[in-house]
């Protein structure tokens, strides 16, 4: 029989103890044929799907409008400020992102408010739609790793978010350059790039949360609603809740400094559980070089300090824990999604 010739090969492969690991085998096969790896094929497909979808076009339109509106208000505010000699001329360029004349929120506020919505919109139906349409079982019966599937979903959407945020950020910078005619310093450009990076990470967190919900809930609507509910909770209700707790547990104003300080730090910790708060802290540090500390400072600590803006490295250092916290939250979400997804059974219809 002609199979006799072929069988020793696979027999050998199965029974020898020192066989290379599966990943290594896959990598070996990868080098033999020059084709895109299935992971990137999936990323490309997802990216393309998002680009074509109406949902994405609508989101982009909303965000672009919001950003252009915010830049307009920022520019008018800056002009008025400069005229009346009230504006702080330091880092004028960065103020385009953080200053408003009061008619519309600032660029940063828009990003922190609408960013999560983009993340949720891109992720809420990532897995359950594929499952309900029966494409998931067909896809997973192809030679791909199961974790690559959710990772590809995440990567594609995150790439898209990064592209959108960076292009919007640069658009704002360019427009600002035109209207105020005040060139940015290299440090300011770096700060903006870093801010956009933090924003991408922040949206990535919401994206991952949405993917987690899309794995957990079979219905896309349920998953979208839970994502939006959590987003509303963290952006609106959480700070209110912390405020109530703060009032209720506040020590007497005449208490010892250590008690007051401890209470303030506790409340700060509570606040920092919210990714929205972490994001606002990180961005304000990066875009406002004048921010020197994110926690309470005693008069003793401030004595002798010169009120000058922080250097870029110092600002990064100050916002580093916040950034790490955001990335960690994203990782935790991904870990939970991974565990849930690997355990789930793939049937075409639940």
């Amino acid at each position, binding site marked *: 029989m002609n199979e006799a010739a072929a069988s020793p090969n696979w027999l050998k492969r199965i029974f020898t103890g020192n066989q290379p690991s599966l990943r290594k085998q896959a990598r070996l096969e990868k080098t033999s*044929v020059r084709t895109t790896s299935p992971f990137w094929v999936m990323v490309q497909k997802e990216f393309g799907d998002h680009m074509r979808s109406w949902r994405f076009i609508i989101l982009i339109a909303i965000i672009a409008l919001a950003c252009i509106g915010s830049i307009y208000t920022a520019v008018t505010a800056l002009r008025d400020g400069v005229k009346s000699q009230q504006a702080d001329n330091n880092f004028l360029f960065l103020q385009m992102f953080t200053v408003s004349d009061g008619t519309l929120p600032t660029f940063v506020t828009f990003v922190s408010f609408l960013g999560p919505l983009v993340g949720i919109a891109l992720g809420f139906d990532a897995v359950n739609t594929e499952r309900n349409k029966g494409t998931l079982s067909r896809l997973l019966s192809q030679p*791909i790793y199961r974790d690559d599937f959710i990772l590809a979903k995440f990567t594609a959407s995150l790439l898209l978010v990064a592209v959108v945020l960076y292009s919007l950020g640069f658009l704002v910078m360019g427009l600002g350059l035109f209207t105020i005619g005040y060139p940015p310093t290299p440090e300011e450009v770096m700060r903006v790039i870093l801010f956009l990076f933090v924003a991408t990470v922040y949206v990535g967190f919401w994206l991952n949360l949405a993917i987690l919900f899309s794995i957990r809930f079979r219905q896309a609507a349920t998953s979208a609603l839970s994502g939006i509910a959590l987003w509303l909770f963290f952006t609106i209700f959480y700070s209110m809740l912390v405020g109530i707790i703060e009032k209720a547990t506040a020590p007497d104003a005449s208490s010892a400094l250590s008690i007051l300080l401890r209470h303030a730090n506790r409340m700060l910790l509570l606040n920092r559980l919210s990714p929205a708060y972490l994001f606002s802290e990180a961005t304000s540090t990066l875009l406002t070089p004048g921010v020197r500390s994110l926690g309470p400072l005693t008069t003793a600590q401030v004595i002798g300090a010169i009120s000058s803006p922080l250097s870029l490295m110092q600002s990064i250092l100050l916002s580093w824990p916040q950034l790490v916290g955001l990335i960690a939250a994203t990782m935790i979400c991904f870990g939970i999604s991974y565990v849930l997804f690997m355990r789930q059974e793939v049937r075409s219809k639940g």
Partner: protein
Amino acid sequence: METSIQEAVPVTEQLEPIIELKRLTKRYDTQVAVNGLNLTISRGEVFGLLGPNGAGKTTTILMMLGLTEPTSGSARICGLDPVRQALQIKRRVGYMPDDVGFYEDRTAIDNLMLTARLNRIPSAEGIARAQELLELVGLKDAVNKKVGAFSRGMRQRLGIADVLIKRPEVVILDEPTLGIDPEGVRELLKLISDLSRKEKITVLLSSHHLHQVQQICDRVGLFVRGELIASGDIESLAEQLDDEGTVTVELEAEGWSEDLIHRLTNLSGVISYHGPQSHELVHNSITASATLICSRDLSSEAALEIIQSGARLNAISRKQYGLDDIYHRYFEGGERGERSSSKS
């Protein structure tokens, strides 16, 4: 006349097994979906996994592909273990899930190309193969049509093309004929059997439609409540079913006579005779049919008796146990039990 039960001796034993399941078991919490399944399918065979809804067919298939881990027991597909080498198996096995889904806003060829690229087929080769396959399954005119506009039958045929694009050794089709009109079913089954004959692909298809499975399968396994209760070709299944050991012969003849009735009832091995009685025979040239229940196959003997009695034999047949009878015998009650405890 189909009297050859003896030929049903499994030829498959000499062939190389490509799917081997040994005491494969899957439990969900309290319920056993697949219970100690032993099954061997050899290369080039068309095997039909037959069972009512919820019998554990899909679970078995998922375990074969490594999409679900078995609770106990082992499986070998192309000599590989699905638990540990799922990726290599998926490279060799094409699987079409029941109610196969495609990306609706993409064209037929886009969907096929995605599968091709996931299997690391270079794009030039992939396009050529996709076009070839679309022509093969009769979707040549719909190459650039979006799948969203496809009918159920077209989707199913696209599913076949999708399965074949990676040049699999084994094709697993889960309920391929579900929801297609009879003509579509006929075409699809013809396509499947042609493919397996021409390309020497092993085909495993699950179904609860007996007649369809009957048409194209070399062997059939009856699967009820997680257990394979019988397997073999249709004839040997009929034999297994036939635990009373009786053979039914139906005959129709012109010119019944008392002599003939006498001859037939006295034939050694005839257990009962259902046909015209002697008082009913008004004149000699009556045409009538009769049924003989025999302890063995007596069709040729009965034919001889009719000829010898001077009557004209119009038709004679040994009644085959159709899959319908088999189905009813095995699945009665089984389905009721499954439905009340629907699967999770």
